[in-house]
Structures are given as C-alpha cells and as structure tokens.
C-alpha cells in the first residue's frame, strides 16, 4: 500500500458551479414548498388527522438513518481495523454530517410551528424519545466533527481511533433512538415492537452505504480521479450482505406478527392489501422487496456487478427500496386504523374510525422531502470536498488494496 494523498477538488470549473447551481435551485424549491405549507397550513398536503406524518417524514427519517449508516464506512477502518477502508473514512464522516443536516432540516420545516425551534431547544421532556434524539443528533455532530478534525490534523491523528470508536457507539445509540420513535409506540398495531431498533440500524447500513457508493462513484468520475475495482468490490459485496440482513429483519418482524392473532389485521393490510391496504402491499412487494432488495442483491452477487454502471444501478435501487420501506413503515403503519374497540366492527364514525384512510402525497411534500433533504446534504458534500481534503487523490488498487500485487510481477 502506498501512502494516501488527500486533496480538495478544484472547485473552479463550470461543471462545479453548475452542479451547485442546480442543487441550490432544488433546495430553494424545497424551501418554497415548506413556506407554502406553513402559510396555508398542512391541509394543502396529503397529511390528515390520521396520516399525521407524511412524505417529509419518510425522507427525513431515511436521511437521518442514512447519516449514521454513512459513518459506518469510517467505523470499519477505525473500529474494525480494516486498512483498506481508511482512505474512505473522511468522506464517510462528511457524508454523515451532510445527510443528518438534510434530514433534520426537512423534519424541522415540516413542524406545525417551525418558528418555535427555539422552544424545542429550551423546553425538555426527558421522557420523550424526540428529546433524547435531539441530544443524540447534536452529540453526533460534535463527535463526527471532532473525528474529522482528528483524522485530518496530523498532531491529533493518534486520537482518531478513539474518536472513531466513540462515534461508532454513538451512532448505534442514535439509530436505536430513531427506530424507537416507532418501536415504543404502544398505540399502533404495526409499531410497538423492539425489533424496530435493530432493524433501523441494519436499514441504516444499507442506506448509508448505497448513498456513499453513489457519491463516491460520481465524485471520482466527474473529477477524473482514479477509483480502483478493489474499493468498489469491497463496498458492493458489503452492500449485498447488508440488504440481505435487512430482508432477514423484515422476515422476522412479519413472522412474529403473523403468529399472533392480534396482528393478523395489520399483516393482511400490508402483505395482502386487504381492507384498503393495496397501495402499501404493492409498494412493499414491488418496490421494497423486489426492485429495492432482490434485484440489487442479485446484481451485486452476480457477474453483472463487474460493470460499474450496474453497481451504481444496484445502489440506486437500494436507496429506492429503503425509501419504499420507510414509506410502508411510516405511512402504512398510520393508515391501518387504530384498534380502539377490539372485536367490534365499526358501523360508522364521525372521525373515520376503523377505516384505512387513503393517503395521496402532495407535490409540496415531495419537493420538501426530496429536494430540501437531498439538496442540502449534497450541497454540503460538494462544498465540503472543495474546501477540505476529504477525497484521496487516487483510490487506485495499488494505493488502497493491502493485498495488491502488481500485475506485472504476478
């Protein structure tokens, strides 16, 4: 292995400014969408008193778990001592901060009163998982920024392993907190399950890694830097393993529910589309399982993945699958009616009890969630790699692969 030389990207080309311009425009549109929702109130969205968390939450929660997952690549180097991942660590940490910022911006702008953010920071109910999460997210920023500093500053490099270790533990707690937002909700049939926390951790591994692969491939391709097969081979194999692990958690979650008569309703709703759940069962089987999990796993484990484009496509499909899974969990979980009167059939109700309320997302929600969320995150990455030395000059095999043997000598 040769020493790794980290450099900024030049950041002067037309392409650089064009990219920032496009991302800026997307982000601005997201902000306008948020202002539109705030001005008129949430009735202009697809959200209702039954589907209280809509598309913005799907994107926000996805970005938040992706953030902790993106840091995983750095952890493989610092915690598990894999030398090949060391050159990948700084970008991993930058992406973690960027994705978390994107997710939190969406979450805040979707509040009924985003102007009261200061209240959220000054009034604390320490029994609330949201309150814990505020501490965990802020702590994550501090720890990851210190970690980046320790990695980049020669004098501090000796502490980077410890910082990486703390960051790894912190991110596990953080994603446990995110999964527990749903896991601790006793009221709803599809939540109230301890498996939510570990499942969210595994989902974060997929989300963070898939986005990392895409950002890495695009960054190296557009800046003309060399990206060796060795790096990509490791990352894509890992992605396939993570996707399979998420499938395992999904299987256990549904099997547990299917065993208990109490949960047969929600399972028929999500898995078979009964009682108005067809939207969710199609997204579950079509997007989450087939296109978002099975197809990318097949691509990544087969010889198809010898082509870079296919690795990119598989990563993009994994992101799509993750978003679909988040949609089924968040929206599907709310769409299934609350079981307030077990054993009773609801003949009629003044508040749509017992009915699955259709949710059709609105344009402002998608623009806010996707535009603002990914927009802010990617702008931070683009600016980050142009002002600080996050990217290795080259990720060619002879630099990255500890087992590299020059072809000429073999």
């Amino acid at each position: 292995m040769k020493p790794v030389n980290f450099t900024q990207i030049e950041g002067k080309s037309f392409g650089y400014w064009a990219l920032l311009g496009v991302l800026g425009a997307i982000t601005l549109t997201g902000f306008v969408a948020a202002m539109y929702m705030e001005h008129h109130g949430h009735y202009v969205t697809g959200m209702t008193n039954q589907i209280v968390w809509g598309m913005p939450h799907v994107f926000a929660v996805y970005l938040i778990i992706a953030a902790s997952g993106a840091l995983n690549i750095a952890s493989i180097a610092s915690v598990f001592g894999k030398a090949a991942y060391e050159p990948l660590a700084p970008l991993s940490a930058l992406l973690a901060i960027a994705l978390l910022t994107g997710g939190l911006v969406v979450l805040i702008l979707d509040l009924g009163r985003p102007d009261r953010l200061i209240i959220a920071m000054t009034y604390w109910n320490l029994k609330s998982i949201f309150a814990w999460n505020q501490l965990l997210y802020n702590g994550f920023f501090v720890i990851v920024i210190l970690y980046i500093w320790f990695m980049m500053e020669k004098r501090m490099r000796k502490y980077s392993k410890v910082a990486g270790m703390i960051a790894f533990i912190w991110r596990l707690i953080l994603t446990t907190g995110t999964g527990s937002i749903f896991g601790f909700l006793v009221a709803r049939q599809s939540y109230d399950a301890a498996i939510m926390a570990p499942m969210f951790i595994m989902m974060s591994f997929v989300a963070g890694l898939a986005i990392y692969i895409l950002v890495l491939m695009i960054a190296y391709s557009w800046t003309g830097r060399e990206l060796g097969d060795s790096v990509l081979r490791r990352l894509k194999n890992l992605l396939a393993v993570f996707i399979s692990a998420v499938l395992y958690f999904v299987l256990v979650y549904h099997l547990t529910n299917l065993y208990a008569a109490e949960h047969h309703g929600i399972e028929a709703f999500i898995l078979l589309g009964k009682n108005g759940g067809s939207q969710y069962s199609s997204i579950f089987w079509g997007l989450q399982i087939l296109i978002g999990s099975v197809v990318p796993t097949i691509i990544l484990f087969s010889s198809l993945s010898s082509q870079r484009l296919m690795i990119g496509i598989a990563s993009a499909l994994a992101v799509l699958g993750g978003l679909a899974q988040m949609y089924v969990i968040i929206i599907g979980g709310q769409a299934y009616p609350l079981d307030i009167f077990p054993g009773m059939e609801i003949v009629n109700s003044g508040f749509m009890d017992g009915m699955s309320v259709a949710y059709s997302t609105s344009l402002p929600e998608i623009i806010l969630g996707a535009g603002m969320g990914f927009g802010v995150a990617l702008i931070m990455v683009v600016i980050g790699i142009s002002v600080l030395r996050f990217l290795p000059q080259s990720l060619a095999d002879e630099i990255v692969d500890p087992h590299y043997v020059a072809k000429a000598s073999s």
Partner: protein
Amino acid sequence: MAASKEMTDQSRRSFVKQTAAGAAAMSVVPGVILYDVARAARDPGDAVTDRTRWGMLIDANKCVDGCTDCVTACHEENGVHQLGRPATDAQWIRKVHLRDKQTGREYGIPVMCQHCEHPPCVDVCPTGSSFKRADGIVLVDKHICIGCRYCMMACPYKARSFIHEDVTGQAVHAPRGKGTVESCTFCIHKVDAGEGTTACVQACQHDALVFGDLNDPDSRISRELAKYPSRQLRADLRLNLGVRYRNI
C-alpha cells in the same frame, strides 16, 4: 346545697350539649368545607391539586342512536368549527357506532380524550407541551407546542387533532392555533369556574354522560362506578382512564 347541685347539673348538662354540638359540627363541617372546595370556583392563583380526579362515565344503553348533541355542544362551546374537510377538520369528540362481530349487538358511544392517568401523549411530547394537570385533565400548552404530532402517533384513542389551517371564531377560553395540536379539555374553563360539568354532559338529554370527581366517594360518578360494571377502552394498555363506559 340543693341549689348548688342544681347549678352543677346545669353546667354539666350545658357542657354535654356544647360538646355534642361541637362534635357534630366537627364531623359535618369538614365534609361541607371539602364539598364546597370541590365545587367552588378555583382561584386562578391557587394550584390545582390531586385531591380531585375528574372523570366521565358514559352509558352506551342510554346513548341514543343518531343523536350528536354532545358533539355539537362541545364544538360550539370550544369554538371548533368544521370546514367541510373531514380528513383535516378538528374533532374533539365524535360518535362511533359499533357492532359486535360475534353477537351482532349494536350501540353508539361518544369518544374523546380519555384523560389517562399515564397518558402516552405526555410521555412522547418533546417539549412538555402535552401535560396532565394534577386533577387528571390532560391538556396541550399551546404556547410551547411545536406541532410535531408525535402525541397523535402515540394516542391509542385518536383523540387529538392537528390544526391544519387558519382558525376563526375562537372562544376566549379555548385558544387554538394553526400548526398546533388540540383535544378535549374536559371543559376546564367550566370546571375551574366551579360548574363541575362539561358542555357535552349539559347537552345530553338522555342522561348518558355523568361527569364528576372520581376521588370523591359520594359523587354520582363514583357511586355509579362502585355499583355497576364499567369498562375502559383498550384496558390492556393499563392507562387507567378518566373516561369509563357502561354497557359496552
């Protein structure tokens, strides 16, 4: 000697009389005072205490099919206006008509915030905006609600509404605001004024709703609960609800 004996007897007699009167007063007055404290208007400067726990008993057998007087009265009292958008309009109380899947028996009941002793909405609220008053009434502090809607995710009874658009025609005693969450307040403005009742109870012409102090064994609600069987919605959650149902 005889005269002095007479005087002694009289003084003894008056002592006994006064003591008896005093004892009688001692045993009755506290009850009267307590009764008055419970019923009287609470001075705004005085803290609410847990000596009282407000609750409601709803009798499904008395609740008349098709009658929504309680719903209308609640929404009029609290300035909750419907805008013709059922999915986003606020509902503080609604009528639910149910049929037993096995037996076919049907009944209707009003459902509102159940004023839990252990409210999940209060647990999850990040700012402490959702809170339970010492007298058991679960409320939203509109000044510190950030509109995150986590309480609505946590409530097992779908009792809360998010204000999806600008509100007009607010009642002075029930401030509302776009972007915050709200629900039944057990008409605290009436309770605090010493009326000891709510708008829905007053509106019910069928005596299906009883409001009162669950901690007072002599209140009508406590007497009826002690005498007849009653149920809580989702009793499996062990939330110890302030609202109880009969004949469901």
